[in-house]
């Protein structure tokens, strides 16, 4: 090995070390979905609760109860602003949990809903949120069957936080999971990426950028069903929420010990999303989506999977964006539009706009 390779080898070993939280307090980076979140989850939560069901850290846990296979998941929603073009915290809370179940291969059935409300929050806003939850639940074919309400003092919450948990049934034989991904598999994305995250950034009104953009929030269970029917060789699906598509690719590359090689040209991005990202100096691959999923499928079934997704309204612009290779294990490589190649790593925290 030459000196540079020795250094890189040392780094890879350092990266495999057990994560440790070095901060004395929680910072916003711990909630961004990137490396800091992973460290917090692995070093604090996984360490405390470790068990075989939790350990794969998939979007939902796959449980067996008296012969039935169930998927269980939970998610909290703290989006600001509460209402944004294309949706609000209510449909986000339903779709988010429905999607975590759907991408785990489960048919979503029942949801719980927990509300943390701030003193002074307008009842009209709460009604609006709950109405969109009802509509989203209806669209996804799930019922909200139990819930909880807490009110905190003014200033101790941000208007309204919502938590949902969901349970679904896994009808399909076989096991999905990042660990089943192998070299030769194809990587697909169900549609243009980054619209939700950019919409939220613009909706906060801090940027003075106006764009005709709406959040991509949508329930994915129908798309998943169509996909699984056409391509039984699906290895794993993930909805690309916090941290975006790049984070999902890294999680899978790490868990499966494979390389993921992505063709930047093939990744669908709306021009408005690209424009805003270019202005802000952030990469749409790291921007959150709420109705998009990344799919790893047996390479031989790539065409069938793509056709099935494109045949569904939510997957019309699905695309084959990359392939799985064996080397370098654990890394995501991006073949850039420009014709170069680079690594596409996990971010530490939220993508921060650059100054110049």
């Amino acid at each position, binding site marked *: 090995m030459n000196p540079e390779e020795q250094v*890189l080898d040392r780094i890879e070993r350092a990266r495999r070390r057990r994560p440790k939280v070095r901060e004395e307090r929680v*910072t916003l980076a711990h909630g961004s979905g990137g490396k800091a979140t992973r460290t917090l989850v692995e070093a604090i939560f996984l360490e405390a609760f470790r068990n075989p069901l939790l350990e794969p850290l998939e979007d939902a846990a796959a449980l067996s109860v008296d012969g039935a296979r169930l998927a269980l998941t939970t998610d909290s929603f703290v989006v600001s602003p509460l209402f944004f073009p294309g949706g609000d915290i209510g449909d986000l809370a339903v779709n988010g949990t429905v999607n975590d179940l759907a991408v785990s291969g489960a048919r979503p059935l029942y949801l719980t809903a927990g509300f943390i409300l701030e003193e002074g929050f307008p009842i009209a806003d709460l009604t609006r949120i709950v109405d969109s939850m009802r509509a989203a639940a209806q669209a996804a074919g799930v019922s909200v069957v139990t819930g909880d309400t807490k009110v905190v003092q003014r200033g101790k919450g941000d208007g309204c936080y919502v938590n949902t948990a969901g349970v679904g049934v896994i009808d399909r034989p076989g096991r999905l999971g990042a660990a089943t991904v192998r070299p030769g598999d194809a990587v697909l994305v169900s549609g243009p990426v980054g619209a939700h995250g950019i919409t939220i950034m613009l909706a906060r009104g801090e940027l003075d950028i106006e764009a005709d953009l709406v959040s991509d929030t949508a329930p994915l269970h129908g798309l998943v069903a169509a996909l699984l029917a056409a391509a039984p060789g699906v290895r794993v699906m993930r909805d690309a929420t916090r941290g975006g598509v790049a984070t999902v690719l890294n999680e899978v590359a790490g868990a499966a010990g494979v390389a993921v090689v992505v063709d930047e040209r093939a990744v669908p991005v709306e021009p408005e999303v690209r424009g805003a990202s270019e202005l802000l100096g952030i990469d749409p691959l790291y921007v959150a989506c709420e109705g998009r999923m990344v799919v790893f499928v047996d390479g031989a079934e790539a065409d069938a999977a793509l056709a099935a997704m494109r045949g569904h309204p939510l997957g019309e612009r699905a695309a084959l964006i990359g392939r799985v290779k064996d080397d370098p294990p654990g890394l995501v490589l991006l*073949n850039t539009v420009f*014709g170069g190649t*680079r690594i596409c*790593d996990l971010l*530490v925290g939220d993508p*921060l706009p650059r100054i110049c």
Partner: protein
Amino acid sequence: MRFVDEFRNAETARALSAKIAALCEPGREYKFMEVCGGHTHTIYKHGLEDYLPENVTLVHGPGCPVCVIPMGRIDDAIHIARRPEVLMTSFGDMMRVPGSGGNFFDSNAEGTSIRMVYSPLDSLKIARQNPDRQVVFMAIGFETTAPSTAMTVLRAAKEGLENFSVFCNHIMIIPAIKAILDSPDLRLDGFIGPGHVSTVIGCRPYEFIARDYGKPLVVAGFEPLDILQSIYMLLLQLREGRAEVENQYARVVPWDGNPTALRAIGEVMELRPYFEWRGLGFISHSALRMRQRYAAFDAELLFETPGVRVADPKACQCGEVLKGVLKPWECKVFGTACTPETPIGTCMVSPEGACAAYYNFGRFTRTRVREASVT
């Protein structure tokens, strides 16, 4: 997308790459410094080095304003932010720059309010909305961002805002380039000149580099083809035995800069006798402070700061990296003790920092990447 896609065209890049290879004399090593962190970011983000022959090396320079802020100034900012009446604002990539006791995010976790803004003018809006708070804008950047700080102060003065001030850390590019040229351990063949800085200062201030040091400099834009073309222009100068200042980024950079912006800086700010640069040490006349007549907006006068100089951690070799003496991976702590999650040196913080760019995008030898990237 117009104005972007045409500057990222792979076919044009391949043609340019062939012309670059043809200009290189076999057996000769070429070392060019891209001064600006924005260029470093572009080079890594697009995998530009894949287009360069093995004997052309790019050295990453000191033009990342976040990377050259000394720890003591971060500590001073946090000290100001700890005052209960203060609401501090700063640019996004300042948030993770470590001081001696943590960064702005850590400081916020302990109770300060340091908010991210996209423009200094946003700080004025925040000041108007929070009349009971003192809003302090942590100003950083080269001549690129100094005019917007100056314009913000001018507007605050015009509005008579009494709860807004600036913690001024603006620095200047020419003294930094001069420090690099005077550094004995450096051997460079030319410079890729900073683009955005030059929109303000123009191309004339670089003329001494060609005249007195005999090095060519090409002011370059920020798309990958801009940089590739600048490398071609540098090699052409060397081949023809010239050392001149040339402007590749003429679509944005006027030869004489932006006189209005320069006047705004001159109205509000003046030279500091000296300023500390992380890794480079004290450089005289290399930074700006607020003029006496805008003292009412000068956070350094309004609030006490410890002003303590904090030595860089011993293990950190940011200075050598910033001067281009070391490649990022040659630093002793690169990638092990110093990572984007736990940066020791500032080069690892900003996505424009050479170490962060290399770690995030290039942590792989070029040959191995080429083999792996074939799909």
